């Protein structure tokens, strides 16, 4: 069996159900792979782990992967299980926000650690300064949870459709009391969870072949998860070593995640890629990336995997 380590972007949860399903249901084994899944967390930069040799493949969002590439980390997208973006900005209705024009003067919670790029490029497209002031927004570095909204420390916070949004609802705030702005709807969506490897790995045909088997098994896992969301959530729960996740939440999350993976067979859609790059480069005075990326994705793995 070939050993392979996958570094996740975040903790064990249904966001990564496909991989856990593939592991649990033996899809990796069928491809003669011995896969280790390393959960991530708020302090783990998957790119660093990849560069340090701690993993072979990572799950990352494209904006941070492209920024890392510009910073000298030669990471390449080899597959894109997530077709659409689940990111949104959630506001309390009582703050009076109805459209993005209402943002100036408000406090917005944003995730940093490489996840701020979609927000920054959205704001620069809206031409709203993020340094505070009269017609700017005050940005808060939001930690892990939705407390700032519940405690009214922020007017809006970043949420994922499949995770934090559920937490807001679960806390007892009704959907009618909220206003949400999906990045997809605002036309600023960027590609989320994709699979990345180091450029040099693609030069070795044996490695490419191994990766192809991995992507094939992973996508099989994803499709299985889409079809059996409750069972997939159970599997995820089993792999959660913290013992802190709840069944209810994971099942809900699986349902939402399935909406995002739907429509992807794992192959990166170049149009989506282009849209992401354009969005990131259009950042006015302070774009996220300054040069058009070269060789930031490759189809060799998916081509081999799906016989393209």
């Amino acid at each position, binding site marked *: 069996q070939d050993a392979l380590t996958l570094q996740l972007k975040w903790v064990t949860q249904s966001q990564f159900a496909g991989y856990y399903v593939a592991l649990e249901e033996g899809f990796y084994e069928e491809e003669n792979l011995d896969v280790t899944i390393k959960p991530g967390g708020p302090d783990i930069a998957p790119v660093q782990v990849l560069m340090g040799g701690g993993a072979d493949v990572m799950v990352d969002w494209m904006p941070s992967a492209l920024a890392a590439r510009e910073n000298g980390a030669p990471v390449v997208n080899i597959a894109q299980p997530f077709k659409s973006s689940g990111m949104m900005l959630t506001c309390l209705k009582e703050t009076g926000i109805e459209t993005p024009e209402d943002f100036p003067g408000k406090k917005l919670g944003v995730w940093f650690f490489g996840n701020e790029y979609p927000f920054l490029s959205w704001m620069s497209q809206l031409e709203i300064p993020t340094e505070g002031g009269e017609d700017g927004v005050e940005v*808060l570095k939001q930690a892990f949870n939705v407390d700032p909204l519940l405690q009214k420390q922020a007017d809006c916070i970043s949420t994922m459709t499949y995770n934090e949004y559920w937490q807001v609802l679960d806390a007892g705030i009704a959907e009618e009391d909220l206003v949400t702005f999906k990045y997809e709807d605002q036309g600023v969506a960027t590609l989320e969870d994709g699979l990345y490897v180091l450029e040099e790995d693609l030069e070795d045909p044996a490695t490419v072949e191994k990766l192809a088997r991995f992507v094939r098994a992973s996508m099989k896992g994803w499709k299985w998860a889409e079809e059996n969301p409750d069972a997939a959530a159970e599997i995820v729960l089993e792999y959660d070593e913290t013992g802190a996740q709840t069944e209810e939440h994971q099942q809900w999350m699986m349902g939402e995640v399935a909406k995002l993976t739907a429509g992807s067979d794992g192959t990166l859609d170049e149009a989506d890629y282009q849209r992401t790059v354009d969005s990131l480069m259009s950042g006015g005075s302070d774009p996220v990336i300054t040069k058009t990326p070269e060789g930031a994705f490759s189809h060799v793995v998916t081509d081999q995997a799906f016989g393209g």
Partner: protein
Amino acid sequence: MIWVIGAVAVWLGAWALNVWLARGPATRARALLVPALFGLSLLVLWEGIVRGLGVPSVILPAPSAIFERIIVSLPILWGDFVQTFLKGALSGYVLGVAAGIAVALIADASDFLRRGVMPVGNFMAALPIIGIAPIMVMWFGFDWESKAAVVVVMVFFPILVNTVGGLAATDRMQRDLMRTYAAGYLPTLLKLRLPAAMPFIFNGLKIATTLALIGAIVAEFFGSPVRGMGFRISTEVGRLALDMVWAEIVVAALAGSAFYGAIALIETRVTFWHPSQRRG
């Protein structure tokens, strides 16, 4: 490889020079030169290893790259320093030290309170910063006040333990003397026990300086405005701008060392009589 060998050679040479320098008379210049030399040789070693082994900059940037980053980012670094050190760490330090000494005095005043407070104080010791930081952010908001609150909790225990230990560090005759004067609690405290406790208290104060800084920085990982050393560090790690991360670390190390040095200087003034200060 040549880089690595060269760097190791430079480092060993500097160490030998230091050994020689330290044998000479203890002048102020030497006291500054020796650590500087040691540090410089460490930097050379670092640069050599990074270059020699081709360590990618997203893992560990070279000192030269960090230095460049510091030069071009001075205004940002200064703003972060004000936010984290001056506002968060210092105010928390002052409050935490005051609280630690106050509780130590309370615990000391009666046996009943000491037995009750000390175990509770021991509890406080281990409230891990990762646990309290999110709570403090929830209670005191995103700005520096929540960082100061974290710092208060962090410095409290070292001060408490050392003050309580120090207040007990008088010898029998010294205490008996006070008893023959029928000195009340307060005079005994002010004229005997606090002075005798000073070497211990300064121990705590010194340990607390570095804790305060770490506390203020790490607390920013759990929610902050978009400035501050901790904010910058966590954000730039995510962006893989490791040179900026290290630039902030350099600022933190400089500020922390200066802070520690200032406390140590006050210590030599206050506890000049202690044997550890009397002999060089």
